[in-house]
C-alpha cells in the first residue's frame, strides 16, 4: 500500500499538536476580539464598543457553563425533525440508485476487483453524505432567520450555544443514522459484486508427471473454467479431500472432492482472501549506496513520481528496514514479511523471468547477516516471504558492518572492526531471536542481484504482517472516516449559516469542502512550490497559452504579477492553515487495499477533527450571539 503521508505516533505527536493548536486558537481569538472591537467602534464609538466586547467576553463562560443538556436535546430533536422534513431520505434514495447502476461502471474482470468495489462504495457514500451535510447545515439557520421561524426558538429561554450545538448534534445524528444504514447495504453490495465460483471436473486435471499414466495414486493438476476473465490452477493431492486453489486476482477458492458412487466430483467455494485487513508493523527505511555507506535516499531513476527511490543491482547497495519491538511473544514462529517492489531495468536482461533479488536478515549489533531468500521480483502485487524461527536454508551468511559518514567527515563503523566476529557466520543453522534479533531490533535488507537493474523501495513497501484484523470492523472504521468528514462539514456549515444568508453560506461551505479536499495543493500553492507560479501568474499563462515551465518575459508586468502572487501566497498560506484536511480523514485506501486502520491513525484523525470542531462551534456561537436575531 502506498503511504505518502506517514501517520505520526500518537503520543509523540500529541504535545506538539496541542501546542500548535493552542497557539492558533489564541491568535484567532485575539484577531476575532480585535475585529469585533473595530466593528463595534465604527458603529457605536470606542467607549460603547469596549463595553460591548467586555459584556460579550463575560457572557461566553456563562453561556458555556449553563448550557442545559435538556434544552440541547430538545434542539437536537428539532434539527432532526427539520432534516427529515427537508427530505433527507432523498440522499438515501440516490445512494440506492447509484448502487443499482454501479454494475455498469465497475469491471469485475479487473486485476484487483475488491479494491475497485470497495473504493467505489466508500467514495460514493462519502460524496453523498457530505453533500447532504452541506445542504442541511448551510441552509437550515438562514431560512429560519429569513422566515422568522427562529423567533419561536429565540424567544424561549435558550442560549446561542444550545442553538448552534443543537443543530450540529441534530444533523450529525441524522447523518450517523444514514451512515449506519448505508454501511451494511454497501457491504452486501461488495460481497454480491465479488461473489463468483468456478467449476472443475475430473477431466480438467491431469497427472503432475505426464510420463506416468493417470491414476488416483498421484497428484493431479489442472485449471478451473474461466470466470470473470480469470481461472485458477488447482493441484489435487491423492488423498486430500479439500484444499486451496492458486491465488489469482487477490483471491483463491477452496475445492472439495466427493468421490462417492465411483465418480469424482469437485466443488469450489466462493472467493476467499479478497477482503482483508492486514495489520502491518512498519520499520524505518534507510539505504546503502553502491560502496556500502548509509544514505537517506536511494537513486532517482527519473520517475515522475518520487515516492520510491532505487538501489543498483549487483552492488553493495541495499534498502534496509529496521524493525523494533520484534519479540518472541509477537512472532513465535518467525517473521511474515510482505513487500511490494518497484523494478527499473536499464537493459532487457532475461525477458522471460523477472529480476532476481535477495532478502537478508541482519543483527544490528553484531552485523551477522543471513541471506534467507533469493526471489524473482513481482511488481504491483504483494509478495509474501516467510522467515522461519530456525533458519536452516539460506544462500549465504556473513558479518557486515554498518558504515555511516558523520558530519565531521569521519566514518562510524558498527560493529567496530576490533569487535567484529566473522566466525558468527560459520554456522549451518541460525536462530532468529538468538542470532539475528538484538533487543527486539532487527534489520531486513533488500538487494537487487542483477547488474544494470534497479529495485525501488519506499518505507511502507516492506512490513511484517503481525496479524489480520476482522475485515468487517475495518470496513466500519472506513465509515468512521466518512463520519469525521461529515461532522466537520456540518460544523462549518452551521458556523457559516449563523453569519450569512443561505446562498452565501452554501458557497462558503462548498469552498471550504473543496479546498479542504485539496489542502495539500493549497499548502504547496501558499509556499510557492507549484510549477507555473501563483494564481495571477497562472492566469497570465492561461490567457497567453504559455507553457508552465518557461520563464515569463521580464518587465514591469511580470514584476507586478509576481508581487501580487507574493501577497496572495501569504493569504493562501493563512487560509490553508485554517482549512480542515478533509482528504486525510478518508480511510478508503486502507480498506480497499486491505490494510487495517490502526488505533493510532484513528486517534490522530479523531483528535484533529476535534481540534477543528471546537473553534468552529465557538465561532458559530459568537456569530449567532452578536446577531440581533438571537439577542
Amino acid at each position, binding site marked *: 500500500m502506498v503511504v505518502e503521508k506517514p501517520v505520526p505516533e500518537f503520543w509523540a505527536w500529541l504535545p506538539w499538536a496541542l501546542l500548535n493548536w493552542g497557539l492558533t486558537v489564541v491568535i484567532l481569538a485575539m484577531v476575532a476580539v480585535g475585529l469585533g472591537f473595530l466593528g463595534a467602534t465604527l458603529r457605536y464609538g470606542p467607549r460603547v464598543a469596549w463595553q460591548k466586547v467586555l459584556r460579550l467576553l463575560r457572557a461566553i463562560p456563562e453561556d458555556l457553563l449553563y448550557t442545559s443538556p435538556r434544552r440541547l436535546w430538545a434542539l437536537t430533536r428539532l434539527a432532526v425533525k427539520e432534516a427529515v422534513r427537508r427530505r433527507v431520505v432523498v440522499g438515501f434514495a440516490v445512494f440506492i440508485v447509484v448502487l443499482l447502476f454501479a454494475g455498469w*461502471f465497475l469491471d469485475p474482470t*479487473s486485476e484487483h476487483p475488491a479494491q475497485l468495489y470497495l473504493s467505489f462504495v466508500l467514495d460514493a457514500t462519502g460524496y453523498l453524505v457530505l453533500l447532504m451535510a452541506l445542504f442541511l447545515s448551510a441552509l437550515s439557520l438562514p431560512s429560519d432567520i429569513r422566515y422568522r421561524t427562529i423567533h419561536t426558538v429565540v424567544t424561549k429561554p435558550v442560549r446561542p450555544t444550545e442553538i448552534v450545538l443543537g443543530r450540529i448534534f441534530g444533523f450529525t445524528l441524522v447523518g450517523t443514522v444514514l451512515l449506519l444504514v448505508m454501511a451494511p447495504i454497501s457491504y452486501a453490495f461488495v460481497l454480491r459484486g465479488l461473489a463468483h465460483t468456478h467449476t472443475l471436473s475430473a477431466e480438467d486435471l491431469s497427472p503432475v508427471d505426464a510420463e506416468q499414466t493417470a491414476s488416483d495414486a498421484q497428484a493431479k493438476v489442472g485449471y478451473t473454467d474461466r470466470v470473470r476473465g480469470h481461472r485458477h490452477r488447482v493441484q489435487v493431492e491423492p488423498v486430500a479431500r479439500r484444499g486451496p486453489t492458486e491465488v489469482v486476482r487477490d483471491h483463491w477458492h477452496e475445492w472439495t472432492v466427493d468421490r462417492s458412487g465411483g465418480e469424482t466430483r469437485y466443488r469450489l467455494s466462493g472467493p476467499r482472501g479478497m477482503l482483508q485487513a492486514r495489520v502491518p508493523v512498519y520499520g524505518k527505511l534507510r539505504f546503502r549506496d553502491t560502496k556500502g555507506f548509509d544514505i537517506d535516499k536511494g537513486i532517482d531513476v527519473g520517475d515522475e513520481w518520487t515516492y520510491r527511490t532505487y538501489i543498483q543491482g549487483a552492488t553493495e547497495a541495499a534498502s534496509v528496514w529496521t524493525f523494533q519491538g520484534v519479540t518472541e511473544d509477537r512472532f513465535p514462529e518467525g517473521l511474515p514479511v510482505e513487500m511490494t517492489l518497484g523494478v527499473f531495468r536499464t537493459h532487457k536482461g532475461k525477458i522471460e523471468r523477472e529480476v532476481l533479488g535477495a532478502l537478508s536478515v541482519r543483527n544490528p549489533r553484531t552485523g551477522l547477516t543471513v541471506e534467507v531468500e533469493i526471489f524473482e521480483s513481482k511488481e504491483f502485487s504483494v509478495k509474501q516471504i516467510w522467515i522461519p524461527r530456525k533458519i536452516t536454508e539460506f544462500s549465504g551468511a556473513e558479518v557486515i558492518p554498518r558504515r555511516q559518514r558523520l558530519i565531521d567527515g569521519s566514518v562510524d563503523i558498527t560493529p567496530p572492526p576490533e569487535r567484529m566476529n566473522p566466525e558468527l557466520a560459520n554456522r549451518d543453522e541460525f536462530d532468529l531471536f538468538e542470532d539475528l534479533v538484538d533487543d527486539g531490533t532487527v534489520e531486513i535488507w533488500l538487494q537487487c542481484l542483477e547488474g544494470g537493474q534497479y529495485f525501488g523501495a519506499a518505507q511502507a513497501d516492506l512490513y511484517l504482517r503481525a496479524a489480520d484484523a476482522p475485515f468487517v470492523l475495518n470496513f466500519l472504521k472506513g465509515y468512521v472516516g466518512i463520519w469525521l468528514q461529515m461532522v466537520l462539514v456540518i460544523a462549518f456549515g452551521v458556523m457559516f449559516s449563523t453569519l450569512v444568508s443561505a446562498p452565501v453560506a452554501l458557497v462558503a461551505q462548498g469552498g471550504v469542502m473543496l479546498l479542504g479536499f485539496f489542502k495539500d495543493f493549497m499548502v504547496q500553492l501558499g509556499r510557492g512550490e507549484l510549477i507555473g507560479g501563483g494564481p495571477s501568474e497562472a492566469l497570465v499563462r492561461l490567457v497567453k497559452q504559455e507553457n508552465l515551465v518557461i520563464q515569463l518575459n521580464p518587465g514591469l508586468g511580470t514584476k507586478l504579477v509576481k508581487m501580487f502572487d507574493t501577497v496572495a501566497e501569504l493569504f493562501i498560506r493563512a487560509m490553508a492553515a485554517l482549512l480542515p484536511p478533509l482528504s486525510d480523514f478518508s480511510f478508503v485506501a486502507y480498506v480497499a487495499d486491505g490494510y487495517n486502520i490502526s488505533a493510532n491513525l484513528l486517534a490522530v484523525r479523531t483528535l484533529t477533527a476535534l481540534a477543528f470542531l471546537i473553534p468552529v462551534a465557538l465561532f458559530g456561537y459568537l456569530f449567532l450571539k452578536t446577531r440581533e436575531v438571537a439577542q
Partner: protein
Amino acid sequence: MSPRASFYRKIIYLAAVSLLLAVLYPVSHPSTSGGDPGGVLAQVRHDHQLTEAQLGDIDPTGETIKLATFGLRGVAANILWTKAFNYKKKKDWTKLSATLQQIIKLQPHFLVVWRFQAHNLSYNVSAEFDDYRQRFLWVIKGIEFLKQGVRYNEREPRLYSDIGWFTSQKIGRADEHKQFRVLFRDPEDFYGVFAQDPVYPPSARPMEFRDNWLVGKDWYARAEEVAEREHVPVSEILFYSHRPKCQMNYAEALEEDGVFKEKARQAWSRAEREWNEYGNRELTVGRGQVIRLNDFEQYAADVAKYREQLEAMAPGLRKKLQEEKRARLSKAEREALDTPPEKRTQAQWQLAGEAEAKLVVDHREVAQRVTGSKRRQALELAQKLRTAERLGARIEGYRSIVAFPWWRMHAQVEQTPEALAARELIYEADEAYRLGDLVTAKAKYDAGLEKWREVLDNPRFPTLVGDGQYGRELRELIGKYQRVLDKRDEPFPEDFILQDIIDRHGEPIEP
C-alpha cells in the same frame, strides 16, 4: 399584490412558455421509430450521419451519465482526465482503467480520447511492468479499448487502423516480440486476445492464422473498407501501405520462427503480389492529385525514350551548350568547380553550387537550338520530356516515403529458392550454435554463405550488393560466422566468399 394580478401574471408566464415551446418544437423534437423524421436538428443530424445509431452502437450507460452531469460534461471529463493522469503517475492501474471507462462514457465519439488512451495503455502502462506477461496483458487491454471504441464509432477508419498497428507492430516489433507472439497464438487464448471480438471471433480463425501480423492485416483491410465506404480523408500513401507491409512482416516472422520452404515462399509471393496491387492503386495525394506508384517505371521509360529522340535530332548539341555555359562562368567559379570537393573552402562550396546550377542545360534550350523542319517536333519532345520528368520525380518522392522499390525488391529476392535456402541454413546454423554444436554450425554457415553468394550474384537484382539494409544484415551474419571460427580457433578465410560485402559495407558486426 391582488390575487387577480397574480393570476394574470401566471397566465402571461404560461403564454410565454407555450410560445417558446411552439418555436422550439419544430427545431428540436426528436425523430421516432414510427416514421416521424423529427425536428430541424434531428434532420440535420440524420443528413450528416451524426445520430448515435449512425455513429455506432448506442450506449445507454453513456447517455445516462451525460444526462446526470447536468450539462457539466466538459468539467466532469476534465476532472476525470486529471485523475487518470494522476493514477498513471502513481501507478494505480486499477483506478486508471476504471477512470478511462468513465471518460469514454462521457466522450464516446471523441476520437482522440480513444487513440490517446489506447496508446497510453498499450505502450506506456505496459512498459511499467517487469513481467513480460503483464506487459502483454496491457498491450491487449489497449487493443480491447480500441475495439470498444470501434463499437461506438463504426465509421472511423483510424480506429480500425490503430488496432491493426497495435496488433501487428506493437506485438511484432517489441523487444519481447518472440514471447508476445507465442502468447498471442496461445490456443486457449488465456489473455482474451480474440475474446469478445465481434469481427474475428476465434471460431472464424484457424490456429495457423492466429498470427499477430495476419490479424493486424485483417484490421487494416477493415480500415481500408471503412475509409472507402465513408469517404474519410486519410493520408493514403501510408494508410494503404500498412496492409501489404503486414504480409511482408508476416513472411519475415515465419522465417524467424523457423518456417521455410513452400509456406515461406507462398507468404513472400503473396507479399509481392499485394505490394504490387498497392503500387497499382490510385492514391490521392497533395491537393487532390491522383497517382499510382507503379507508374514511375513508365515515366522513367518515357524520359529515356524522349531524351534519346531529342539527342538524335541534334547530336552533341547538349554538350556544346554546356561548354558554352562553362565558358561564360567567372574565373573564380571555374576555379571552385575544378577544385576537388574535399579541398574547397566555404566560399568555393557556394560558388561551385551556383556554377553547377548555371551549367544545367534545359531540354527546351536544346530544342530551341534545333533548326529547320525538326524544330517544332523538338520543342514538343522537350515539353513531353519535361512533363514526364516532373511527374516521375513526384511519384518517386512519394515512393520514397514507403521505400516502395526496396520492399518490392525485398519480396522478390526472398522468394527465390537461393534466398529461402540461405535463410533456412543460417537458421539451422544459429540453432546448432545455440545448442553448442560448433561443427554443424560452421558447416551450415558455410553452406548458407554460399547460398547468399548465389542470391547476390542473381542478375535480376543488380543493386543488391550495394543495398545498405542487406549489407547490414550480412555484416551481422558474417559476425556470427566469425564468432564460430573464433570458438574453433580457426582463422577467418582470406578468400572469404562475401568479401565484397565487407569491402563495401564495413567490418562484420559482433553479435
